[in-house]
């Protein structure tokens, strides 16, 4: 781990070596693209969180006379949608739904997938074969198709979106967790721990998990942007969040017909999805580089 000896960090170089996580944090702090992405995400998350207080209007209150006001209209900075509802308000509220629908499946996959993958990787044998072959079956479907098929069968609604997207992401995390576990398990220090009498629990908790969580975390972070695009995509198809709720994919869908009247306003929800997903991608790229993990 070559830390460049800049005057500022002389202490770190001369004195005790920095801990792994401090090194990672230090590298992240020196990566402008990652910092910008993190700032953008913080802004998006904050505005979604504070939507009820920030939004100038009621998200479901519209007026037929004010339909499709252009961007920059008086009293409606970002215009209005096809029912005359304020776009800025709905974009703020929509971010909540999109973020929840996009982040939850990856979180679920991270927890469930890590548990299953570490279990399969550590125990090995028949358990491993059973778990991994079952996961392989889900790889028979491209992610988009699997999500749409499950959502299509279950019907629309946020809970079903979360279920179908979790089913998409769990097998992916399991694969990464399993292969990381198998790799770490064969290292000498695990054998040493076992020789010194550590139980399975202690080994997994204290020795194994600390070394596999990094790669799994980085992998999970690369999946967030896909999850957000898919979650909004399901709503876009009418399979996700149901109207009149505000959600970026759904807004894009209902505004699609209006591109001949006003082209800019219908493009806004998609732009929001794009910016969010790009920020997550840049953040996960930065995290991967900082943690020196090769994906």
């Amino acid at each position, binding site marked *: 781990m070559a830390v460049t000896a800049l005057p500022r960090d002389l202490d770190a170089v001369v004195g005790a070596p920095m801990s792994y996580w401090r090194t990672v944090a230090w590298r992240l702090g020196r990566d402008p693209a990652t910092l910008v992405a993190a700032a953008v995400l913080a802004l998006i998350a904050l505005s979604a969180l504070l939507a009820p207080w920030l939004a100038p209007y009621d998200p479901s209150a519209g007026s037929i006379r004010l339909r499709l006001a252009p961007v920059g209209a008086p009293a409606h900075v970002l215009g209005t949608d096809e029912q005359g509802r304020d776009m800025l308000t709905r974009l703020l509220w929509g971010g909540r739904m999109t973020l929840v629908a996009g982040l939850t499946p990856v979180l679920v996959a991270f927890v469930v997938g890590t548990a299953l993958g570490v279990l399969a990787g550590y125990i090995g044998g028949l358990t491993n074969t059973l778990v991994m072959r079952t996961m392989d079956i889900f790889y028979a479907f491209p992610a988009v198709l699997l999500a749409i098929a499950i959502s*299509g069968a279950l019907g629309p609604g946020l809970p079903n979106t979360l279920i179908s997207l979790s089913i998409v992401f769990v097998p992916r995390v399991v694969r990464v967790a399993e292969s990381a576990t198998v790799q770490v398990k064969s290292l000498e220090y695990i054998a040493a721990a076992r020789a010194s009498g550590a139980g399975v629990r202690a080994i997994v908790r204290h020795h194994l998990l600390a070394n596999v969580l990094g790669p799994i975390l980085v992998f999970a972070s690369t999946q967030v942007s896909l999850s957000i695009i898919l979650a909004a995509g399901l709503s876009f198809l009418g399979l996700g969040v149901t109207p009149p709720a505000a959600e970026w994919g759904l807004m894009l869908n209902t505004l699609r017909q209006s591109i001949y009247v006003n082209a800019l306003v219908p493009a806004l929800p998609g732009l929001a999805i794009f910016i969010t997903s790009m920020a997550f991608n840049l953040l996960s790229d930065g995290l991967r580089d900082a943690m020196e993990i090769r994906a």
Partner: protein
Amino acid sequence: MWGYVGRRLALAIPTLLGASVIVFAMVHLAPGDPIAAVLPVDASKEQVELVKKAYGFDKPLPVQYLKWLGRVATGDLGKSIATRRAVILDVRDSLANSLVLALSSSLLAFMLGIALGLLAAFCQGRWVDKAASVLAVIGVSVPHYWAGIILIIVFSVWLNWLPAMGAANDPGLREYLRHIALPTVALALIPLGVITRVVRSAALDVLNQEFVLALRAKGLVSRRVFTHVVKNAAPQILTVLGLQFGFQLGGSVLVEAVFSWPGTGYLLNLAIFQRDIPVLQGVILVLAAFFVLLNLAVDLLQTLVDPRIARH
């Protein structure tokens, strides 16, 4: 080598069977009655039983599954509840349209992605490299359905150059190309981003190996070094190309919905909203089978290009 081929073939069969179980279960775990769509709201109990019997929904699930699998194995995917046409016919027609779109978008993404990736690797750190990286991040981050709408706004609404939706009604290559242009570009964005990234890193891996330094040291011109690098990076590039082509087939649902392109995605979308279960099952099963076989082909092709892989 042949042992590996045999093993790999044997592994595809349980995967396909598993996929068929998922497709079957998906529909039967779903809420609501699968035959509700064909029956009038005020259907009598006898009528309901009769229709259930006609579709075989009165048998226990495992029996239904085996019967269904037996029929599927002979190419019979059942009849559409909405149109009463054989599902296999609908799937065949739409699959042809989807294949064309997947091929055209893959071709575009492959050519551009490989060129950009190699260019970026050979100009590492310079502005070409940076531009390619930015383009790659945009490619993997953009919601492609939104990109499709933006393309429609620019090329159909503002410039009025290309049609916004559907496949060509009139025969003729020109009209066909005009209709397929926008969906092709929209669908090519994600693979373009992925391929650029993978090609760049694969080429850089090779460039950083000592043999390249040796080649340069003995005075080989850059053009010849280039061939060596491409040859050595080929297996990795090939894998990503194969995978991306598969994703194009199953992943076009959203783009097909945006452009009303009459492919499998469009059919799937229609089936979902009409709750046409046989069509839903048929489309997904055929696409999954296609995807599994494609992955198999990529694996085998990879071993052919680089026999060392079979030993792992």
